């Protein structure tokens, strides 16, 4: 089955293409972009995108799919369904499964499972250290062969600086970036951001410097061994400042932030809603403004979801013992469009952070609308208003602090690998 998307405003942030055009997809590839294209032959599904925008499918460098080992929280099937609903066509899943993805056989398992059940492309992230224990390097080379594009001990930092140095050096062998979760665990024994809100709630708190100290350490190590480093889920003003300065001296630094760090502050934790419990924690208003500014001035290269689905029972407990994490794939795009509505970013700038830059980080040939390229794309309307209803999530994780929020901008159709992977029920095109 071939697909003809007619009359949409086609945008391609990489080439700067922007115009009312038709896109013809043959098999898994974009065959032609022109106007107007007539039906070429039989077996063509015509999609009317009049009034909507056609853009590359989104790429997320940070999700948790929980399989293998935590299938009650999420599976590769439900997680990728949530991804395509959110407009994502390529995602990275972190290694903190059970067993940990620290060897080829686990990577193989995930890759095989994705092939049979995945609704979009998934690139497993390998662990830096065996069992995420921070003690010895995992078999990175074998995992690269099996399909990983990056390594990370996400969930914690590699505490041993000497070991992280070796990981950064060793990863150069495969030309893959190390993704760093920045958290000084001795400073971060807490559940919320240390600030005025934590003073009022009495919840154990984590200061912003717990992140910033490791941000600085990891950039210093990477520069010393001349290896690429990607700092994930950056959340504080101090981190943005440190990264902005370091990037002037050393070019192989990239970073991402998540929609919750530019959409909501630690004040939301004051009524003890465990859906606001996330690591790093929701920060202060000043931090949120600095993150937004960092996105505007390109200190922050990309937006990732840190999609962290959890079962309701793990959130339906006292704040201290609730799990950390936000189920983010189905709200990330609309929250990110908020940056365009507020005038922080242009549409092209936003898509660069959601497609081109993550593709470049991972060395992926996706994230573009161009003849001859794989057909990964989305059709969306930036003006449609909708209300977040966590009960409608495809993800098993209903844990979101955005339940009930009115958002503006909606994904209507996702095409992954030339096939319709998601169609919004409201989309008649």
């Amino acid at each position: 089955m071939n697909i003809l998307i007619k009359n949409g405003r086609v945008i391609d942030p990489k080439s700067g293409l922007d115009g009312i055009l038709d896109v013809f997809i043959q098999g898994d590839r974009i065959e032609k972009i022109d106007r107007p294209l007539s039906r070429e032959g039989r077996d063509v599904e015509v999609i009317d995108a009049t009034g909507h925008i056609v853009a590359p499918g989104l790429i997320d460098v940070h999700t948790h799919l929980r399989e293998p080992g935590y299938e009650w929280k999420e599976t590769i099937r439900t997680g990728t369904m949530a991804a395509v609903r959110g407009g994502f066509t390529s995602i990275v899943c972190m290694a903190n499964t059970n067993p940990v993805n620290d060897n080829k056989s686990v990577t193989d398992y995930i890759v095989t499972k994705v092939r049979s059940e995945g609704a979009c492309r998934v690139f497993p992230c390998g662990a830096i250290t065996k069992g995420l224990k921070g003690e010895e390097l995992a078999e990175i080379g074998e995992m690269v062969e099996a399909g990983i594009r990056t390594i990370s001990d996400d969930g914690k930092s590699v505490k041993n600086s000497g070991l992280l140095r070796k990981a950064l050096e060793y990863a150069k062998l495969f030309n893959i970036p190390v993704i760093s979760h920045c958290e000084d665990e001795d400073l971060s024994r807490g559940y919320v951001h240390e600030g005025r809100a934590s003073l009022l709630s009495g919840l154990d708190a984590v200061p912003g410097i717990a992140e910033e100290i490791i941000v600085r350490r990891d950039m210093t190590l990477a520069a010393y061994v001349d290896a690429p480093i990607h700092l994930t889920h950056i959340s504080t003003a101090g981190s943005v400042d440190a990264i902005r300065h370091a990037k002037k001296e050393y070019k192989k630094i990239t970073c991402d932030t998540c929609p919750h760090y530019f959409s909501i502050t630690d004040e939301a934790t004051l009524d003890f809603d465990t859906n606001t419990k996330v690591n790093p924690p929701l920060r202060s208003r000043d931090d949120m403004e600095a993150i937004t500014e960092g996105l505007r001035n390109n200190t922050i290269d990309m937006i990732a979801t840190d999609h962290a689905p959890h079962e309701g029972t793990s959130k339906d407990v006292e704040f201290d013992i609730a799990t950390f994490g936000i189920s983010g794939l189905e709200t990330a795009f609309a929250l990110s469009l908020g940056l365009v509505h507020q005038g922080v970013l242009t549409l092209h700038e936003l898509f660069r952070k959601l497609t081109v830059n993550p593709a470049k980080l991972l060395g992926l040939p996706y994230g573009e609308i161009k003849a001859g390229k794989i057909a990964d794309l989305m059709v969306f309307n930036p003006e449609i208003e909708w209300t977040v209803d966590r009960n409608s999530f495809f993800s098993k994780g209903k844990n979101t602090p955005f339940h009930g929020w009115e958002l503006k901008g909606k994904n209507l159709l996702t095409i992954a690998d030339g096939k319709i992977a998601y169609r919004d029920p409201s989309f008649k095109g």
Partner: protein
Amino acid sequence: MKWTKKDLLGITGLSKEEILLVLDTAESFKDISRRDVKKVPTLRGKTIITLFYEPSTRTRTSFEIAAKRLSADTINIAASTSSYVKGETLKDTAKTLEAMKPDVTIIRHSMPGAPHMLAKIVESSVVNGGDGAHEHPTQALLDLYTMREKKGTLDGLKIAIIGDIIHSRVARSNILALRHFDTEIVCCGPPTMLPPHLEDLGVKSEYNLEKAVRGADVIMMLRIQKERGGVAYIPSIKEYSTMFGLTKEHVGKARKDAIVMHPGPMNRGVEIMDDVADGPFSVILDQVENGVAVRMAVLYLLLGRET
């Protein structure tokens, strides 16, 4: 002024008028405890549960006596004897108890926000009997009652709060309540025990005990919250007591008519010396007595609320 709230979860959310309503109501209840027959029928037929996940003597007993003097039926549940040890969640415990139709549940818990969670689940009233390092509203109310009783007014008072401020729900609730009045509050302790951003609450920080108590009308001593890891914030109890233990000499620096308070339990010889705890300026046992009256007032107001 009428009481309208279903729950008392903290001083947060209370207006000055509501605080004064509790204090004024307590005034009328204090006399009952001094009678021969210490019981009035006000809450006859009401069921009050105390659900304590943390050890407590005075708070639990005080609530129970308050309830009984108002003729309510009381049931005490301690975590060590509850389904908690069998792995039941707070949510399920709450639903189970709610099915037995209590009128008020008083909860104490080591984790901040547990009473708020309970209040969202149950339709009956919830009173926070202390949640982690968050709030202890009835303690603050009885402290304000005692200050007002001894000083005649809250306005114009200088209050020094000394000790493990960062872990203290008593300090937090007292600060939030005293902020409604024209008071000067100084928090004193080693810097590790003074939380960052304290000044945002309109409170002064002071490391030196002698300076902190100078000219104070009220000295409120706190114990080190060992159960919240307080000991790790200082090198040793011995060193702490030499620098932050309240002596008679310290009290001498305060105003002549200063009072010394302590929410209990006291660690004599650590934060407070014997001659201070038992001295003429000590109102520690008045606090305990007033606690019953204030808790009677709280129960009375919650159950008689205007809906």
